[in-house]
């Protein structure tokens, strides 16, 4: 199963989502590989805390400078999780469709889940990340700029997808990230329903704004290892990806304690 994690604009949490969902799936006993497809800009390695182990990158594999196993970096904590870093030296236009196809086919054969961290927007890198996906998760934040750009990306996604060209359906879901319940309650932030009504795609998860994510990225220890509300949200999304029917939590602003949030099951 190949899942591309994408978005309209940058900075909405694609790489954070990719890292945490990859770990979540590996914790459930699945063989997972996470690929950073944001050619020219590396991010996922820092979030996973694997930046010091990089020797070869995704472009090296595609160009035949090394074999796939040489480039795959194994995770520190999960023996079933591997990571393929983005190239920093090359530019986005280096990717060739046939080489991308061969790489994805190779990974698909070896892993239960291939998670592709796509570049934002609609550049060529986005196109390549979308080509061979079975599923797409669109990360959106409840802000006008993010929702608007997501709509555009959703419109383009199907056109770029091979599966779709073969007459099959690519599953598409919305992940709403960085929700601030206290603002939603005051009607100063778009609600989940608002976003879903506008974008007209099914929901896969809701992640509350979580200040702890910053330190998780600082240290390279992904948030999903903690008991933070956003960590629990990522765990629930993992289960949904695996086909479980998990109810959506509703985040309430916690009174009295500034910024502290508690996910309550409805």
């Amino acid at each position, binding site marked *: 199963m190949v899942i591309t994690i994408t978005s309209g604009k940058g900075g909405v949490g694609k790489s954070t989502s990719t890292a945490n969902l990859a770990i979540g799936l590996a914790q459930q006993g699945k063989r997972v590989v996470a690929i950073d497809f944001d050619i020219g800009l590396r991010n996922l390695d820092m979030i996973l805390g694997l930046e010091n182990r990089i020797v070869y990158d995704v472009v090296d594999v595609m160009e035949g400078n090394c074999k796939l196993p040489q480039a795959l970096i194994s995770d520190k904590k999960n023996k079933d999780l591997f990571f393929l870093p983005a190239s920093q030296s090359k530019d986005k236009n280096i990717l060739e469709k046939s080489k991308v196809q061969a790489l994805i086919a190779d990974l698909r054969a070896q892993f239960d889940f291939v998670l592709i961290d796509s570049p934002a927007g609609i550049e060529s890198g986005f196109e390549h990340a979308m080509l061979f996906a079975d599923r797409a998760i669109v990360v959106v934040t409840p*802000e*006008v700029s993010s*929702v*608007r750009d997501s*709509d*555009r990306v959703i*419109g383009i996604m199907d056109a770029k997808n091979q599966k779709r060209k073969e007459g099959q359906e690519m599953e598409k879901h919305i992940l709403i990230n960085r929700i601030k319940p206290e603002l*939603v309650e*005051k*009607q*100063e*932030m*778009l*609600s989940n329903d*608002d976003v879903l*009504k*506008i974008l*007209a795609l099914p929901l896969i998860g809701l992640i509350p704004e979580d200040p702890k994510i910053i330190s998780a990225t600082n240290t390279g220890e992904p948030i999903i290892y903690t008991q933070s509300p956003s960590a629990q949200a990522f765990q629930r999304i993992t289960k949904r990806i695996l086909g479980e029917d998990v109810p959506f939590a509703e985040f309430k602003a916690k009174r009295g304690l500034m910024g502290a949030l508690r996910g309550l099951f409805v």
Partner: protein
Amino acid sequence: MTSLLNKWFKGANSAHIAKDRLKFVLAYERSVRLPYIDEMKKEILAVVQKYTQTSKIDVRANSNHDIDTLEVEIVLEKQTHTP
């Protein structure tokens, strides 16, 4: 007085404003994305001009989970009434 109220409520309910602005801008953008839109607009306008003087039509696209719609707004010239 109104400006004072506006100041007071600044930020309150801005989610509604966001929603309305998004709906409006996306309705336009979704219609622009349709590959046949320019051709279709031309043809609709040709039909409309058989009967009216107008040269302006607006097309907006909307979609929800079940249905996609196109809204065509024909802007008519104001009739000048002769007394």
